[in-house]
C-alpha cells in the first residue's frame, strides 16, 4: 500500500502537548456548561452578566474547541495549508448558509411578518 509521506519528522508534537490540549478542551467544556447553568439560575453569581451573553459565550468557546481539535489533533497546524483550505472553505460556505437561513426565517420574519 502507500508509504507514509513523512511531513512531520521534525515538527512532531509530543504527547504532552496533546494532553495539555485535552485538558484545555475539558476545561472549556466545563465553562460552557457553567455558563449555561449560571444563566439558568437568576440567583447565581454573575447571572446578570452571563445571561444576555450566553449564546455569544457558547459560540466563542465552541469555536475555540473546534480550532484546537482541528489545529492540533487533526494536525492542520503542522500540515500543508492545502488541507486547511479544504476544511476552511466549506466551513465558510456552511456559516453563510446557516446565517442566511436564520436571517430569512427568524429575523426577517420578525420584521415583516406575513399571515
Amino acid at each position, binding site marked *: 500500500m502507500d*508509504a*507514509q*509521506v513523512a511531513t512531520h519528522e521534525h515538527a512532531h508534537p509530543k504527547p504532552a502537548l496533546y494532553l495539555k490540549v485535552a485538558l484545555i478542551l475539558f476545561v472549556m467544556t466545563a465553562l*460552557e456548561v457553567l455558563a449555561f447553568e449560571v444563566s439558568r439560575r437568576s440567583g447565581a453569581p454573575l447571572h446578570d452578566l452571563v445571561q444576555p451573553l450566553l449564546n455569544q459565550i457558547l*459560540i466563542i468557546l465552541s469555536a475555540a474547541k473546534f480550532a484546537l481539535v482541528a489545529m492540533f*489533533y487533526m494536525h492542520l497546524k503542522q500540515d500543508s495549508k492545502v488541507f486547511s483550505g479544504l476544511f476552511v472553505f*466549506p466551513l465558510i*460556505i456552511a456559516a453563510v*448558509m446557516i446565517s442566511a437561513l*436564520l436571517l430569512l426565517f427568524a429575523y426577517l420574519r420578525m420584521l415583516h411578518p406575513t399571515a
Partner: protein
Amino acid sequence: MAHDTAHAMHPPTATGLDTRKLAIWTFIGSECLFFATLISNYLVYKGKSLVGPLPHETSQCLLHGQMTTCEPIFEIPLVTFGTAVLLFSSFFVVLALNGAQRGNRKQLIGWLSATVVCGLFFIGMQVYEFRHFYHKGLGYTTNLFGSSFYTLTGFHGTHVTIGVIWLATVLVLAIRGKIPAEKSLNLEIAALYWHFVDVVWIVIFPVVYLMR
C-alpha cells in the same frame, strides 16, 4: 519540501501530499455542508414547536394519552459526560497514531482500544438518552423539536458508529501486526474522520443542548 519527496509514496504527487489524505480531507469538507444543513434545520425550527416536550422549558405535552405539564427534557450532566468522553477519545486516537508512527505496537493497540471503547460508550449514552426522552414523551414525530433533534443527533450517531467500525477494523489490523510505521497513514486517515465526528459534536453540544 525536499525531505517530503524523499519519503514520499511512489510515484510522487503533484502537490507532494498523499492522495488518500487529500481524499479524506475533501470528503470531510463535503460533510461539513451535510451537517450544516441539518444544523440549519434544527435552528430554523427552534422555538417553533406547537406542543411539548421542549428542550429547556416546561410545556404542555401528550403523555400516556393525556395532556400534562412536561418538564424540560434535556439532562445536561449525562450529555456533558458523553461530550467529555468523545473529546478524550480524540486525544486517545492521537496517542494511538503517535504510537503507530513510532512503531510502538503496544502504545498503538492500547490507545486505539481506548478510543473504540469511548466511541461505544458515546453511542450507548445516546441510545440511553433517546429511550429516556421517548419515555418522557418526546417521540420522533411529536413536534418539530423532536424531529429535528433526533434527525440531527441520529445522523451524528450514525457517523460515530461508522467511525467505531472503521477504528475497530484498524485495531484488528494493528493487533495482527499489519500497521507498521510505514502504514500509519491507514490509522491517520481513520483518525481524521474520527476527529471530524468529534468536531461536529463540539458544535452540536452547545447549539442543541445549551443555547436558549
